[in-house]
């Protein structure tokens, strides 16, 4: 089960790198946007890893808190960056 978790984490990490690589091809962004996006992705991956390990160990409270306190801010960070910095940049560069 532990090996499976590491495998899935690897898959998710690879997908995240692909997603960020796609973004870098599509739009030119400031360094701080990249820093925010990478932090957000890492927070989400860390939260998933934390929660997966906790749920497997049967400590559901820790897993839940991991998802809320790591994945939650990660998702919020990515959404806010997308709404206010990335999406406008897409529109600007499309023109």
């Amino acid at each position: 089960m532990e090996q499976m978790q590491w495998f899935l984490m690897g898959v998710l990490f690879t997908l995240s790198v692909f997603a960020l690589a796609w973004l870098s091809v599509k739009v030119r962004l400031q360094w701080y946007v990249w820093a925010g996006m990478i932090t957000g992705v890492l927070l989400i991956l860390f939260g998933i890893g934390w929660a997966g390990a906790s749920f497997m160990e049967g400590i559901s409270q820790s897993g839940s808190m991991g998802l809320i306190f790591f994945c939650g801010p990660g998702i919020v960070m990515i959404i806010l960056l997308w709404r206010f910095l990335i999406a406008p940049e897409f529109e600007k560069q499309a023109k």
Partner: protein
Amino acid sequence: MSPEENIEGFPWGRIVEAFAWASLVIAFVIGQIAAQTDYESLLIKQMPDVEFERSQVNRELPIVYNIKKDGKQLPEVVVMSEGTGYGGPIVLGIKAKRTDEGASLSEVILLSHKETPAFMDKINNKQFFRQFAGESVSNNFIVDDDIDAVSGATVSSKGFTTAVRKAVHLGAAKHLNLDATWQEPRWHFDVNEIILVSLFVLAFYSVYRKDKLAKYTRYAVMIGSLVFVGFYANLSINLGNIAGIFMGYVPTPQQHPLWWIMMAGALGSVLILGRNIYCHQICPFKVVQDLLQKLSGIKLRIKPEIQRKSRMLIFFLSWIALMLIFLSTHPALGSYEPFAMMFSLEGLGIQWYILPAALLGSLFVPSFWCRMFCPVGLYLNEMVRLRRSIRDRIFGKSKSTTVKVDLE
């Protein structure tokens, strides 16, 4: 004719509905029969090394058991006591012995309870019952007077203390013929009760008025309910509360006045005004979801078909939860809502899986939990519909019949 009847030509929907109701009634009856209190077996379970014999001298309430060890009668007796805690009925065994002044308590033993495990952990960790040892039966036994409540489990503390007080004072008066020198607890309207009543009043105002002030009032109620109803008092209504009412697990107004105000406000607004004020204005979890929704700005639409199916999912989940509650006669066991986890970080197994799903879901779908999973919201809205249809039958259909009751 329902869709099921059209498709199959057979009223499957009605049969499933009838089965659900019948099974709930049966589970309720079985639970009530199985929950009959057998004092002696409860005592033996807690103290297996001694024998118990019901006192023939003290025939009046409270019930008293003599304790025997190796055939010899011990100086202590056990006075049985029943009361209501936060989750339901509690049974206590109060060990007492005669003294020159009358009698004193040696130990209070919790024999049976329906409290939420997280609250019981607090009670046990703080060794709440230890403070009763050595106290005279003539003491007041009033929380915040001569008894200290456990922070975060105040209602349970009050319930246990009330149960001890009633049994001990009754025994002191009837069995020991002592004069009532103790004080009775007084009911007082605290600042907490004023805040909750104010929240409901402001919520009513913001619903019925359309001016600018009503808009600001609505924001004030949102913040107030999040801070007070959510984080401070953790008063969210859950399925266990509603099931508890059916099982008669209702705290006294003295013990938990906020519960009465909350229920009167939530159910009263539905029954009297025909509006679901609780879900729209007071529920702190709704406020959390709205804030997350504002933050993300993403509003994924749920197809009406999925919305209809989610209704069936809520009915199914709440049926399972109610079956568990009625069979176990333990309201905390069936409540799957994540409110207590959100606001006081207390919960059991599956509830911890639900909380992140509900919060993350509400980032993308407005009122995700309310629409997809919340049984309280569904039942309150159903009550609004039922009230409206009854009113329409009696007074004829009014123009305002098609008022929205969904949570959008």
